[in-house]
């Protein structure tokens, strides 16, 4: 194999003038984490809302919730990314569209919104499954105690449902983290994009990708460890 390995490449300065290639990859990791966390906030809130809508006793709410999930689940993420980035600003009134496009860090905000809405559909499915898996008696007990529907969800159903769906939510969180790499197509300088840029500048393909791989695996391990801790702390005492 006539490939010239050079593991020292990480300590060489990158042509961007802002430190070494290692710094370049770490800045990519920072963008990956920032995008993943911000979009997760949207996904979690919106997903919970949509999931709840699919379980409340209202046909209209059920239908809206179902439509949301189908729409965002059945279009590839990359296409959704293009719709947010290239199509949406053109459909806005001209002034607003131009303002959106000239925003600094537009790829970041676009990626956060796109991933947030995309992952929300998946979170919604988990939340719905969690609520459905609770015994009916819980909702009825809430009503019997004189709680309104909103209070029943807030104090009885959701806290229990979240505990049950913590493992699948963790895996959705990790999916969301991995999906941030799709945003390299709209110019987000996240970890995969930086590994590619390093490859282009230094021609050391395999070193760059190996480093990115190790960073992704490390982040995964940290998230899984954190989720395990959270699961233990959130477990209902004496439950199961």
């Amino acid at each position, binding site marked *: 194999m*006539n*490939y010239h390995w050079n593991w020292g490449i990480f300590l060489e300065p990158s*042509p*961007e*003038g*802002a430190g070494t290639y290692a710094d370049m990859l770490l800045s990519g990791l920072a963008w990956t984490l920032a995008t993943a966390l911000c979009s997760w906030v949207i996904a979690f809130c919106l997903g919970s809302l949509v999931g709840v809508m699919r379980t409340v006793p209202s046909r209209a709410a059920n239908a809206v919730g179902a439509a949301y999930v189908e729409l965002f689940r059945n279009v590839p993420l990359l296409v959704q990314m293009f719709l947010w980035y*290239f199509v949406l*600003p*053109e459909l806005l009134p001209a002034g607003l569209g*131009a303002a959106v*496009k*000239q925003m*600094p*860090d*537009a*790829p970041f905000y676009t990626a956060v919104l796109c991933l947030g809405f995309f992952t929300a559909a998946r979170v919604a499915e988990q939340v719905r499954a969690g609520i459905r898996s609770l015994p009916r008696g819980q909702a009825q007990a809430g009503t019997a105690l004189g709680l309104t529907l909103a209070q029943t969800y807030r104090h009885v159903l959701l806290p229990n449902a979240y505990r049950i769906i913590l493992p699948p939510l963790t895996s959705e969180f990790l999916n969301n983290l991995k999906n941030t790499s799709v945003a390299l*197509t709209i*110019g987000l*300088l996240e970890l995969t*994009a930086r590994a*590619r*840029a390093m*490859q*282009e*500048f230094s*021609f050391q*393909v395999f070193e760059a990708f190996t480093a990115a791989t190790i960073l992704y695996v490390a982040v995964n391990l940290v998230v899984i460890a954190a989720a395990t801790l959270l699961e233990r702390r959130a477990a209902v005492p004496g439950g199961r």
Partner: protein
Amino acid sequence: MRLTDVLLLVALAAAAATPARAQDLTGTLKKVKETGALTIGTRDASVPFSYLDGNQRSVGYAYEICLKVADAVKAHLKLDKLEVRLNPVTSATRIPLIANGTIDLECGSTTNNADRQRQAAFTNTHFLTATRFVAKKEKGLDKTDDLKGRTVVSTSGTTNIRQINEINAARGLGMRILPAKDHAEGFLMMETGRADAFVMDDVLLAALVAGSKTPEAYAISSEAQSRPEPYGIMLRKDDAPFKAVVDAATAALYKSPEGPALYEKWFTQAIPPRGINLKLPMSEAMRKAFANPSDSADPAAY
């Protein structure tokens, strides 16, 4: 269909297990002899070097040069038939794909420089171009310093994005530099207002402007961000026999009347898909480069 690729893979694995026939050949020539095929890397939007026409077929100046090279390889190996396969590449994927054998010749707009010569080999220069940027006229951007604090886009994997990064760092201009996948996308990001300027080789910028919906709305910077640098067709490194065949073929083509005729066809006449004319007659430097074919990466050599 591309299913044939899969079958070919199986056939190749079988072929590799049996002793090779063409013992005296090495590298790419040996591979071509054995498989009867040569793979050319093509571009989506390197107008007029290698791009897709109205029917999504590869055309272009560098593409035609590569077809001539393929003919020469066929004649050299005394093959009855040579299948020319096309494989789309981007600025970012072309060098690894040359190195890993996916493509044998890269026909496009690849700058030949000393850095890249450590990764790949280049045949004789087929064009000379400098880095500039294009912006909407209304923005009034013309000099490098005008880009201070602006958002600019360039194609990832090009020498241009590297140069603009270096200029940005050296002069402290504070630009935001976005990478685009290919030239068409980069131009589009400037056209739709995602970026203030698109930094690229000037000839590609001229072609993109001419092919746009409103050519009069764009201006290319008067100040260049690099000296005119040579474009070459890329091939695998350390493959002297193949390079010798390719060098001989391109040198013969450039020195014959056919070379300048090919140039005229793509730079001074209407080209597909929309019949635009780039109106870029041969420069003195280019005439010299054709008269004395060279694969030098040094801009001063031209």
